[in-house]
């Protein structure tokens, strides 16, 4: 059994304390609360967590050795930068209401208009100085002989 405090573990892993709390909340780190703001976790569980998060073995071992639940804890240099955890990893990812359309021919124009009319913000990217594409170059269209422009 391994005992730790959230702040201390965060310090050693070089992540924010809320990250550790979130890990515990989402049961990524299967720790159970104990007295005096400490948490306990089976050593094996912690080691497998480290493996999953690509924390090097020596870092994992030295965390276990220093038992961050008690006394003074040194910052483990090796842990720095090794843990590349995206900031919003545990936040539900917010979707953006915008779309990029590449190409300003008839297909690009139609997709853009539909999305803009339905309430999405559209960025249209066109290579040349004006939109219209190949259809603008046509004289008439079959089978109705309508003017293409």
């Amino acid at each position, binding site marked *: 059994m391994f005992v730790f405090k959230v702040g201390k573990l965060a310090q050693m892993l070089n992540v924010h304390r809320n990250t550790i709390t979130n890990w515990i909340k989402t049961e990524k780190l299967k720790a159970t609360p104990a007295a005096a703001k400490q948490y306990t976790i089976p050593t094996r569980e912690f080691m497998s967590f480290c493996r999953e998060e690509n924390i090097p073995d020596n870092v994992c071992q030295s965390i276990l050795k220093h038992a961050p639940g008690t006394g003074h804890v040194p910052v483990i240099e090796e842990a720095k930068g090794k843990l590349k955890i995206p900031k919003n990893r545990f936040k539900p*990812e*917010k*979707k*953006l*209401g*915008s*779309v*990029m*359309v*590449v*190409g300003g*021919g*008839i*297909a*690009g*124009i*139609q*997709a853009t208009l*539909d*999305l*803009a*009319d*339905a*309430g*999405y*913000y559209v*960025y249209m*990217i066109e*290579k*040349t*100085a*004006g*939109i*219209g*594409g*190949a*259809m*603008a*170059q*046509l*004289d*008439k*269209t*079959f*089978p*109705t*002989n*309508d003017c293409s*422009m």
Partner: protein
Amino acid sequence: MEGDVGNFSVKIKQKPRYIDMDKCIACGVCAEKCPKKVDDEFNMGISKRKAAYIKYGQSVPLKYAIDPDQCIYLTRGKCRACEKFCPTGAINFDDKERTHTIHVGVVILAPGFKPFDPSIYDVYGYARLKDVVTSLDYERLLSASGPNMGHLIRPSDNREPKKIAWIQCIGSRSHNRCDNTFCSSVCCMYAIKQALVTAEHLSGNDISQTIFFMDLRSHGKDFERYYNTAMEKGIRFIRARPHTIDPGKDGNGVSMRYITELGETVDEAFDMAVLSIGLEASQDSIFLAKTFNIDLDAHHFAATTSFTPVESNRAGVLVTGAFQAPKAIPRSVAQASAAAASAATLLSDARGTLTKTKTYPQATDISEQAPAIGVFVCACGINISNVVDVNAVANYAKTLPHVVYVENNLFTCSADTQELIAEKIKKNNLNRVVIAACTPRTHEPLFQETLKEASLNGFMVEMANIRNQNAWVHQSDPEKATQKAMDQVRMAVAKITFSSPLSQGKLKVNQRVLIIGGGVSGMTSALSMADQGFDTLILEKTDTLGGNARALECAFKGEPVQPMVEQLIDQIESHENITVYKQSTLESVSGSVGNFNGSISVNNASMDIDFGGAILTTGAGEAIPQSYGYGEHSHIMTHLEFDREVMKNQKTEPNDNVVFIQCVGSREPERPYCSRICCVHSVKTAIALKTRTPDIQVFILYRDMRTYGVWEQYYQQARELGVIFIRYDLDSKPKVTLKQKEIQVNITDPIIGIPLEIQADYLVLASGVVAHDSDKLTSLFKCSVDSDGFLNEAHPKLRPVDMSVNGLFLAGMCNYPKPLDESIEQAKAAASRAGVLLSREYMELDAIKSFVTDKCDGCALCLDVCPYDAIFLKEITTETGEVTKRVVTDSALCKGCGICFATCPKEGIMVHGFTMDELKAQVSAAMA
């Protein structure tokens, strides 16, 4: 690009334009003064443009740009003439390339295609002979805005050509010199179009158009009729591929050598040759595929599957248009809408989070003002001005009563002219505007917008159509045309004098959608609507979902269909936003766009429903063959029967003869359209047979192999596997005779000219697709079908899934025969279009509606004539306490057609924007 679906961040490079878009007024002085002439790529290099240029007259945005590769200052450090002369100081040579990072939820790739460059074929002499042009060159030669202003002249001596030839499949269906083994699927039709339009440009009886083709592929809606029209009009179709083009006599024109079907070599002279070039993937495709990390197919088109035709292999990156496969405009448009639907389903939670609604300044009250009319006369480039003297019209307009301001414009519809009109309205205190230009059908909304921006009521504009109704139809008589334009302007001025501001009503939109038909199209539409968050109802006539797809083995790209259908049904039945009514039909409908009410019969019990819009996906069926001994022998069967009974159970023996006959009852007077799917289906089945047992003999008897687009690869594969293709004509149709238990097929092979006798173990008839009877639906919704019984779209090119009745959309085979992937595209497209309608809680109504005046005495004559059932009789109590009857109109149903107004004997009902005062003034002005 980085990130994942819902949250991509994309880096974009913006090239410098060297002209400030905010300052440029598109006056064209920069281009006029620019000394550097370069080939105009928009006109395919036939004409010149300057280094300071706009792409084309109606370009969006209508802002000039400087071509940095050509500009003398930017390449050699001297000149800056444009800068000197620009009246607004818009030239900015310090403009730098900029990079932007944008954050988007979804990416849609629509970079289009590259027209094939035929100069690699020395035998066709495109680079060598002046009178050999590509079809895109020719398109510019025909165009009124093209290098010759629509006067068709050949490049070598600027004379009108009389005898023109088209050569098909240049850079398509070919291994030779290019690896474009696919069919570009649009060239046959555009060549016919060009041949037909050519006749309108040239005069004299000695003009002739010849199209050299391999298979004529008119496989779309109304295409076969177009082809027939072309033959009736005398366009010559020759099944041959000219192998050499030499210069003609005196170096003008061409001399072409080809071999007829009878094996004779013919040398024929033409004034001009047009190479029908194909569509190929551009270099951009490869770059985009790398950047966005998506897969391309063997021809560098974006790889998709039959069931996800707009999704790339990367989530959140959608592909559409000719980037996915060569295709014509309607399918590109439908596919684009389909991509929009897929994007909308991926981002449905975030809809409306980043957009703002447009607001207009408060309209000024003009009720106390005397009419002050501004007249803007458009030249439409040369569309109007080369027939009508637009300056004379403008000068005449100045003399008309209440007209205080008149101006000529080159393009009144251009973006900068809109700002100009708004400015003139403010400066001259105009309260009414007349636009003498083209049709209000396409352009009135634009000018209404401009008026609203300028604090005027949008309906204070009247258009005089001096282009379509004048310049285009009176080309031979410019003098009288100018006179008529003056009459038209006088009428418009007279009418607008009596106009008053109108307001548009608002209508709450019922955000539920009804889907009629539970086939793959219907289910795809339903799923897309439901995923976008809309309440969805599906009506299915039978007791199972799945429709025709239930009978299919695999889709054209080879994916098994049944697991997909099962999965789709599971998703439909477990979706919280979808309710399915099986064994149900629609019995009655009332209401209109945004608010329909209807009753349906479910298992013979009646039920009321309400919905805001409907998608019609009623499908079509397989025709029952009437010829070739169908029904007389158990081994003579249709495609679906053969799939179901023979293919599925692998019944064929290794040394069987299987004969397919194409176009059974199709492309003949009784069913004069092409069913689009049979050729590919037969070829796919033949390949399956041949791969299973290579010794099996497969014959396909056809009229034109229409394995359009990327399906051409199957035609090739089938030939490589030894499938024998024999062509027949309508006058040499195969004969089927039954001798005891044997099926004998007789046909003459046109290449060797020898009659053949084939003992068929199985005879498969490609019997085509017929529309279901949709009389009931069309009468309920007042929508229309074409002469073949397929539901009509609102516009064949630009609104392929909308119907002419607002609020109705269509998808799948009820519109025209099509394979599964195209049905799915259309179904998603319909969901996108319906989503646009239903995503707004309120819908603005048109202001042109009928209204009841005090003169109405309740005679109710108008009730019977209203085609939209928009008028009701109501009892009212007048001020004097008298109880009387009077009509009321439903503004949501009223279309403003004016039949009630014409029927009413006492001006008791009128139409906004067309009141008696306005019309009287207009008619008197016409008579003046």
